[in-house]
């Protein structure tokens, strides 16, 4: 070991984004290896780096593990009903257009029970950023298959493997009118943070899918291993293709080792946002 002088007295006692987290709510409920903490961390960093004061940021979540995100960020934060984060957030965004509204919720919340709200919020181009944490499963209830579970992947409600075609969320968001569409993973922390920041500075409906391990609910049942193993899959298979135009072809297959995962900032267009 080299002679690094560690002076405990001068060691920092706080982290630069501590004030953006509700420290009095810790410890959190998330499992070891879960990626949601990284998403919350990235959102907090984006707030810290944004040109908008903290009091102008509002976070809304739905229900589920990802739906707990709003409860940990130290801005005005709302934990709505299952699937209804988007219309709840619309009410805030339309009544107070100066607020920067970010919805952080899960793939099941946003695209299954809340699927109708997702396509209509995108169609209307509501001024908000949506961070959709995709862990391919219903984590909070213990690993049931969901609208993003890859065909063949196992869940407690599909013991022989999922048979339904999963949503390709960036393709769905683009098709329904989102002005910004990206897919990242919790491995791509810098790119993900930059994407959130871009959305905060952009008008209209911005959608970021972020892939995130759920070792308890998904990894274990599908022999992926712990959270780190799933992140290794991201590292090995992810290809960054900014501006990819063939979003119909970027389905995710976590199980087949031959299949790549396309990530990047795909769509960035301008379209008049909802003005009620």
């Amino acid at each position, binding site marked *: 070991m080299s002679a690094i002088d560690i002076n405990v007295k001068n060691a920092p006692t706080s982290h630069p984004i501590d004030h953006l987290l509700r420290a009095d709510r810790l410890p959190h409920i998330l499992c070891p290896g879960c990626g949601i903490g990284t998403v919350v961390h990235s959102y907090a960093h984006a707030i810290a780096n944004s040109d908008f004061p903290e009091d102008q940021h509002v976070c809304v979540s739905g229900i589920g593990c990802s739906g707990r995100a709003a409860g940990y960020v130290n801005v*005005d934060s709302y934990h*709505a009903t299952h699937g209804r984060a988007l219309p709840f957030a619309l009410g805030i965004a*339309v009544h107070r257009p100066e607020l920067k509204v970010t919805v952080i919720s899960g793939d099941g919340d946003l695209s299954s029970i809340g699927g*109708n709200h997702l396509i209509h919020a995108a169609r209307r181009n509501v001024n908000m950023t949506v961070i959709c944490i995709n862990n391919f499963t219903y984590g909070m209830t213990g690993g049931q298959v969901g609208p993003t579970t890859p065909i063949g992947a196992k869940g407690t409600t599909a013991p022989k493997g999922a048979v339904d075609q999963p949503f390709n969320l960036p393709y769905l968001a683009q098709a329904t009118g989102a002005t910004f569409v990206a897919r990242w993973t919790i491995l791509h922390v810098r790119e993900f943070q930059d994407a959130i920041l871009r959305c905060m500075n952009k008008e209209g409906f911005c959608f970021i899918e972020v892939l995130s391990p759920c070792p308890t609910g998904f990894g274990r049942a599908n022999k992926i291993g712990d959270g780190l193993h799933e992140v290794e899959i991201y590292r090995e298979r992810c290809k960054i293709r900014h501006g990819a135009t063939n979003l119909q072809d970027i389905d995710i297959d976590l199980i087949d080792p031959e299949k790549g995962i396309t990530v990047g900032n795909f769509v960035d267009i301008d379209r*008049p946002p909802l003005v009620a």
Partner: protein
Amino acid sequence: MPDSACAMQTREELEPRVLTGSHFMLGDHACAEGALAAGLDFFAGYPITPSTEVAEHLASRLPASGGRFVQMEDELASMAAIIGASAAGARSLTATSGPGFSLMMENIGLAAMLETPCVVANVQRASPSTGIPTMVGQSDILQARWGSHGDYGIIAYCPASPQECFDLTVKAFNAADKYRVPVFVMMDEIVGHMMERVVIPQPQDIPFIGRKKPKTRPGEGQFLSYRPDDDLVPPMAHAGEGYKVHMTGLTHDERGYPAMFPETHDILVNRLVDKIRLNAADIEMHEEFDCDDADTIVVSFGCTARSASAAVRQARAEGLKVGMIRLITVWPFPEGRIRELVAQGDVKRFIVPEINLGQLRREVERLTSLPVLRLNHAGGQMPTPDAILELIRS
């Protein structure tokens, strides 16, 4: 800003909020005008007969007078949106009818739990299910009280005329803000689609009771967003005011933070019920006539009360000792007054005509062992004065 932003009008161009004067007005429109006069900021709704005229009226009037109107994808979204807007400080409204009211129940529970004030106008039609969309019903009365899962308190008004659609919608906003609850304006198809004289007062004569604000400034110590005052209602901070509130439908402590403890749950849910129950004397409204010496009392509400009051006056003219209680709030129900009349000893029976199969009759039966006669129709038509008179004579 994009071109569409030009649609927003400057303050000088705004239409007046309060259409002071005497009008010949549809009940649904009177509800919308009442909301505007009360300071409506935000409407979200989905078309449904027979409430659509509320939305149609506001689609032009609300943006033109400085508010925001959004037609949502469904009633789930409509209810969620008005709660979000309320959390950001708006006076918010949605309007619907039975099937939509059922869909709203999920988020009505959320509004009760978050204590976000909001108003839902439900123009009742013949139900269950799709029923007869264009014809009258009064069968959502118990749903208004008990429709979402769990225990919580609410307030519901039941207008009997277009004038009351205006007046009670104003009251609904004030009660919602004062008690931080969802408030229902339980109209019915006949009242909603009836045209009558509606007198709208001067703006300064429209009563206004707003929300209690936090006593501390943002950052000045920790603001406990769910610590109630003596009236059991906590002051409310809105999104963007700097208080960094957290609101959750999970059971929460006084900080607003999730707290999965039976004790916390019991305290919270009891307060949600008690803030209405213990303030019922301030909230409850009814109108009564000829009750003092009556041996028969007709209890009625909404359009049915119009037939009932005609029948009671006719019966009095025939020398029958009959009186009437017309509900103005159906929830809270005038429990105290009914118990008092029973205790006085003159009353021998109650009659409850209603366009459902006995929902309010159950409520009266709960309060007395005296006979409670029924006059019910499942929906589609209102009882005639003659039918009620015949029962009074029996």
